[in-house]
């Protein structure tokens, strides 16, 4: 089976989905599930044909392990999120188009990960950008879609510059070859490195470009937010990967100034990653909207992934790549659960929710496991990856970046707990008395993703084997696993054992608990109120200003979005100036300008 067959099959299927959606959009939504499942299976089969070259029309592809890895992550996220699609069809203004774009963006990402030349990469990249832009606008906000596009466009246009520059220098568009022409041209390499990486940075939401994430994630259709956060953001990581593997940033800058063995340009990007960890964490803690909170957490986790991948060594790289998967899954799960809550209650504002656990225990459990992974607590997937990254950082002695990583890691406890407490725990408002648990169809993705999180957490070998393959492909030292134990230079980790011992501890606690007298069930409102009678559950629910003291500490104005707005206003001002100067309805003004131009040109020409 060739890749082209796969691609064309998928394209055909998405067109079929579109046509079906035109007739019956709910059926079309089910088609998105089927199509993404087919994609998953086909991709899985493609694992055997890694190394295959393929080309059609303008596009050339090469099947690589890393591409396969990335696209598997993507498809898993798309597949699981697709289960929600049928429930949101009624709320979409263009359901058929949504289904089509959903699948086309999936195809776009796959095509991009397997791209062999820059043009293919860029075309598929832009496809994803545009399709997702059109999907986001179907959500709550047009402005977010606009910001998303503009930030993406900044990234992709600058990257196009880099690509064409490399093409000019090397004469070839093939990614793996083209960068070789830059050896011995440090200045050019520097320009290409920063410009090429920019698309990745903007997509993964690294510090100055992170503004789009909360807006887009927060207001995209609930079904698409998991894809955005779990999937599309990870495209940026792929660009980062290219910049260290094909571009070979470490060799290109080997003669440049180094910090703890890291060339300065890479270090700068890593510092940006570290800043986004801090900014993402601080902002996530401050949010009231659960989706925005998770979006900012994606910013922070994007920082981890970027740092891990950029370190490009045995340890942190494996950590970054693993974090990609574990965060993709955890974040998709979290977004799905929030989507379900929003579906049942109609809001994602944490201050308006509460006590959902009594109505949706399964959703709660799934969310709990997702956030345990997201916060990097064993025995879930997120811990293994964070452990690898932290060990890697300790190995290199990158103190400041590690400090940011610690901050993000501890801070994540704060922000993941917030929705847990405000949405699921606490008092149940009377208006939510009739809320129902997620339907079976919605539960399926939650189960799948939860099992995946647990599996990665307990048996990381499954993923680390593939990562070792990628490391071999990239020519760096592979991560070593002895049995279930990850063995690295400065530590060992046996997650299975951690899991078992945790189970052991849990069992002991459970036995003690059961041995003691059974507790009497009281209502939620029967709670200590300093003997005051309170009858309004909402008043007893602590959910707004959750981290008030911390928010007080960090309430400094937040400048970055303002920066974009300022630029936008400046552009409008200049535009206004140009219009009023040159587009006057009075002919005399134009005549005046003709004379001025004539005069300037004449003088210029004579001198």
């Amino acid at each position: 089976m060739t890749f082209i067959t796969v691609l064309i099959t998928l394209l055909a299927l998405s067109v079929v989905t579109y046509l079906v959606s035109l007739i019956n959009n709910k059926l079309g939504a089910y088609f998105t599930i089927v199509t993404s499942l087919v994609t998953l299976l086909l991709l899985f089969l493609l694992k055997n044909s890694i190394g295959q070259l393929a080309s059609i029309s303008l596009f050339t592809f090469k099947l690589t392990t890393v591409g396969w890895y990335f696209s598997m992550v993507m498809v898993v996220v798309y597949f699981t999120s697709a289960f929600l699609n049928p429930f949101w069809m009624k709320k979409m203004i263009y359901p058929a188009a949504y289904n089509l774009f959903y699948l086309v963006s999936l195809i776009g990402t796959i095509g991009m990960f397997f791209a062999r030349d820059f043009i293919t990469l860029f075309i598929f990249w832009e496809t994803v950008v545009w399709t997702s832009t059109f999907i986001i606008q179907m959500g709550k906000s047009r402005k977010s879609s606009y910001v998303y596009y503009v930030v993406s466009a900044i990234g992709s246009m600058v990257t196009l510059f880099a690509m064409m520059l490399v093409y000019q220098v090397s004469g070839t568009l093939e990614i793996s070859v083209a960068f070789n022409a830059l050896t011995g041209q440090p200045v050019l390499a520097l320009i290409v490195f920063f410009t090429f990486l920019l698309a990745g940075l903007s997509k993964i939401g690294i510090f100055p470009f992170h503004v789009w994430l909360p807006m887009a994630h927060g207001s995209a259709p609930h079904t698409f937010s998991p894809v955005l956060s779990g999937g599309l953001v990870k495209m940026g990581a792929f660009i980062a990967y290219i910049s260290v593997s094909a571009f070979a940033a470490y060799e290109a800058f080997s003669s440049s100034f180094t910090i703890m063995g890291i060339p300065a340009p890479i270090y700068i990007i890593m510092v940006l990653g570290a800043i986004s960890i801090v900014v993402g964490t601080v902002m996530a803690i401050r949010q009231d909207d659960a989706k925005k909170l998770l979006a900012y957490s994606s910013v922070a986790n994007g920082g981890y992934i970027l740092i891990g991948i950029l370190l490009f060594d045995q340890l942190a790289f494996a950590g970054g790549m693993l974090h990609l998967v574990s965060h993709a899954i955890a974040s998709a799960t979290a977004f799905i659960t929030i989507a379900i809550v929003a579906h049942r209650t109609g809001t994602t504002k944490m201050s308006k929710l509460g006590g959902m656990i009594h109505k949706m225990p399964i959703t709660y459990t799934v969310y709990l496991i997702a956030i345990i992974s997201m916060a990097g607590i064993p025995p879930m997937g997120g811990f293994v990856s964070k452990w690898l990254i932290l060990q890697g950082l300790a190995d290199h002695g990158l103190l400041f970046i590690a400090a940011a990583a610690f901050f993000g890691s501890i801070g994540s406890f704060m922000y993941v707990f917030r929705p847990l407490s405000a949405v699921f725990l606490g008092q149940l408002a009377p208006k939510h008395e009739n809320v129902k648990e997620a339907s079976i169809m919605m539960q399926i993705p939650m189960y799948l993703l939860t099992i995946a999180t647990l599996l990665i957490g307990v048996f990381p070998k499954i993923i680390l084997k593939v990562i070792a393959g990628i490391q071999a492909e990239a020519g760096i030292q592979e991560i070593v696993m002895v049995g279930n134990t990850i063995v690295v230079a400065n530590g060992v980790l046996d997650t299975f054992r951690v899991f078992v011992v945790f189970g052991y501890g849990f069992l002991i606690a459970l036995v003690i608990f059961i041995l003691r007298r059974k507790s009497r069930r009281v209502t939620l409102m029967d709670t200590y109120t300093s003997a005051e009678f309170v009858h309004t559950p909402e008043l007893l629910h602590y959910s707004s200003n959750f981290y008030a003291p911390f928010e007080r500490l960090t309430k400094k104005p937040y400048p970055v979005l303002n920066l974009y707005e300022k630029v936008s206003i400046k552009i409008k001002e200049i535009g206004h100036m140009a219009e009023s100067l040159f587009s006057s309805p009075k002919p005399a003004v134009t005549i005046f300008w003709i004379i001025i131009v004539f005069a300037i040109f004449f003088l210029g020409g004579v001198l």
Partner: protein
Amino acid sequence: MTVMNFVYGFIILLAAFIFQTTITGFNRKVTARIQKRYGPRWYQQFLDIFKALRKSSITHGWIFDFGVIMALGGIMATVIFIPVAGFEAFPNMDNVYIISYLLAIGMLGMAMSAAGSGNPWASIGVSRALTNMLAYDIPLMIVIFTLIFAFDTASVSEIAAMQQGMGILGWNAIRMPLGGIVAFIALFGMLGKKPFDSFIAPAEIASGPMVEYGGKHLGFMFILHELMTFIEVSLILNLFFGGGSSILVYAIKYAILYTLVNIISQVMPRYKIDQAVKFFYRVPLVFAIIQGLVVIFLGWGVSVWF
């Protein structure tokens, strides 16, 4: 992983509980003496715990129970991984990150259960506790990071072993004095001792996360608190004060360290939570970073001290 591992684990668990509870009882007496009181019996803490376990209890739903069990389970698992004077129930599992993150699952369980009670005081307490954690953990983790970089291992027992044989001069707290100060201050935060105890402030937020616990849940919380104290003091002891070459030495050092913390904390007022954050980011964080830079760039305190 044999049955013996689990038996050893249980022994550590039991020993840790009995030891720490005794020390706590002893320290209640120390506290009383500081306040010119006679103080309770040395075994008062046991009585309190068993009394609590004996009483009837209420529950606010399954999460209220489940959280407590998960908390105790997580903490017990962490205790099992703690190396005591070179003795480990599960060899090679004493990675400092495992310990510090597994500790978090216990805290998460407790926080979950507390918030599940539906009492706003509990949520406020949890929010303060988490903020407090963000404050003390960053400087501490930076110092630990420095240790891992310096010794090229993240194993607590190995780091402890490397400090032994040189007497007091071998301790990391002496070799890396700023780091030692940071760790010592962070221990106050970890233990929730004054001045960093605003998250359980009884008179203000009705003991915070513990507000709704009574009966066996409260007993669980007390056991959890003892075990958590054991983990935290052991961690600092192993990493910065040389651990112990034998169980006896370990126990003595442990008692001294904990009592010292207790004595100091008894004469302290209480920080507001944002003051605590400010404090930790102003002094210990700077110390930690300076210590890190000194170790990473100058190499002082890594192989020898003098």
